[in-house]
């Protein structure tokens, strides 16, 4: 009997408990799902009722009301500006942070730790919350949106820029240092050229993210088209909602398209 047991373990290489791992995961996740639903007092009736309303809303969305285009094009462009400026500011600060925080070239480990901590913090706080904070600080409008996206971008870009610099072959840095170059020259002539592809593609990726965020930030009053979206739904003008959604879609798609073109160009 004990011989058989050994054979069974040899065949599977794990204990029965471990082998049933997928089952435990499935049970655990199901439990989590059920608890969440119960916790929200959701019931099937309400979900079905919601489905009905959705159908009605979808019906009212068509045909989309394109007559409002003239009115929403301004806010749409503002959304684009917010995303671009936020990304731009974020990139500039992230380059500085990346250079100072990269382990291989940081002026001091305490600088590295402080800056990596700072970017982890800005990353951990969501863009929407940054927007709310900046609205309190500087008032409504596109400015808090720009600042929120800039700060939130630093969280991601500062980290990835520092990591890209840390991956540079140390020999290139040494060689330029050995010519008698100053730290600034080493950064601009050895480090920046080596990380340009990573820098560009991460920045564009971030612009992609920021254009989506910036459309949403308007909802809390941080400039752009988001406020139009909220207004139309409050007024139950769903044909306008659809137009605005389509416009956001076109903007996001256009930015992504241009990004892909640039990314293919820079290698």
């Amino acid at each position: 009997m004990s011989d058989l047991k050994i054979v069974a373990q040899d065949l599977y290489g794990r204990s029965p408990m471990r082998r049933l791992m997928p089952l435990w995961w499935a049970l655990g996740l199901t439990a989590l799902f059920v608890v969440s639903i119960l916790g929200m007092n959701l019931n099937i009736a309400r979900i079905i009722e919601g489905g009905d309303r959705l159908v009605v809303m979808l019906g009212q969305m068509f045909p989309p009301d394109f007559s409002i285009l003239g009115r929403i094009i301004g806010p749409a462009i503002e959304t684009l500006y917010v995303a671009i400026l936020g990304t731009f500011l974020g990139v500039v600060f992230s380059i500085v942070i990346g250079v100072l925080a990269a382990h291989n070239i940081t002026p001091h480990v305490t600088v590295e730790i402080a800056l990596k901590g700072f970017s982890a913090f800005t990353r951990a706080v969501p863009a929407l919350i940054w927007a709310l904070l900046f609205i309190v600080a500087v008032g409504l409008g596109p400015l808090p949106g720009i600042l929120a996206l800039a700060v939130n971008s630093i969280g991601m870009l500062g980290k990835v820029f520092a990591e890209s610099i840390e991956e540079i072959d140390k020999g290139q840095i040494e060689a330029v240092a050995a010519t008698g170059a100053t730290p600034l020259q080493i950064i601009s002539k050895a480090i920046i050229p080596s990380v340009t592809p990573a820098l560009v593609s991460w920045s564009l990726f971030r612009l992609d993210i920021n254009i989506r965020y910036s459309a949403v930030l308007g909802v809390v009053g941080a400039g752009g088209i988001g406020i139009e979206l909220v207004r139309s739904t409050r007024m139950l003008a769903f044909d306008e909602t659809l137009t605005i959604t389509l416009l956001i879609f076109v903007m996001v798609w256009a930015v992504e398209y241009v990004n892909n073109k640039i990314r293919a160009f820079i290698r």
Partner: protein
Amino acid sequence: MSVQPILSVTELKKTFPDGTRALRGVSLDVMPGEFLVMIGSSGAGKSTFLRCINHLFEPTGGRIVYDGTDISTISGANLRRLRRELGMIFQGYNLVKRLSTIENVLLGRLGYMSSISGALGLYSKQDRERAVELLIRVGLGEQRFKRADQLSGGQQQRVGIARAIAQNARLVLADEPIASLDPKASDTVMSYLHEVTREENITCIVNLHQVDYAKRFADRIIGLKDGEITFIGKPEEVTDEVIRDLYGEKGDQVDE
């Protein structure tokens, strides 16, 4: 009239933080215009020696005098001023791969420019002309706008030579410049290095693994073993016994 050595090293020691004693007291005078080749098995301390001279490593003892000035503990702006006169050539070429060939040669000019204009790459017309001239001299005039990573190993090392010469270096430190190259490219690179430094009257210290190349090009050969100089002499004085002593019983200079 006696000529002053361009580099005078006395009892140079380097112990790494992990306790490795890479140099145990190396003394050596290098005369202006000399082409010196340093041989020794892997781990003998050849790279460490070169890197202590331009302070890529900090020496832990001894004295280094360059051109009459004590540079043992030099740092900051003085170190940068020193480094521009010391060209370095690396086994792995260490070109900035995403810059063009000519840009890589121009890096040799950074030490002579203000921090800002160097960072912005505002090289003077003369600097650019000189860079092109140097590239032509190492046979790469046509390749000057090619990206460095598109060149072959031998070509990259020739760019490395041009970069060192562009510095107006008076002393070139070459750390196994041909270790990663095939025999044909090795020949070309060593010939260019020898020829250009002879023409410009530049002193040269070259670390080599290959004893045959050492004998062919060197004015003087230094044998380094376990962080100490065990042989100094003319190429013809490098006997089989010397080789055996440096590289162990088998007398083979290719290790690992």
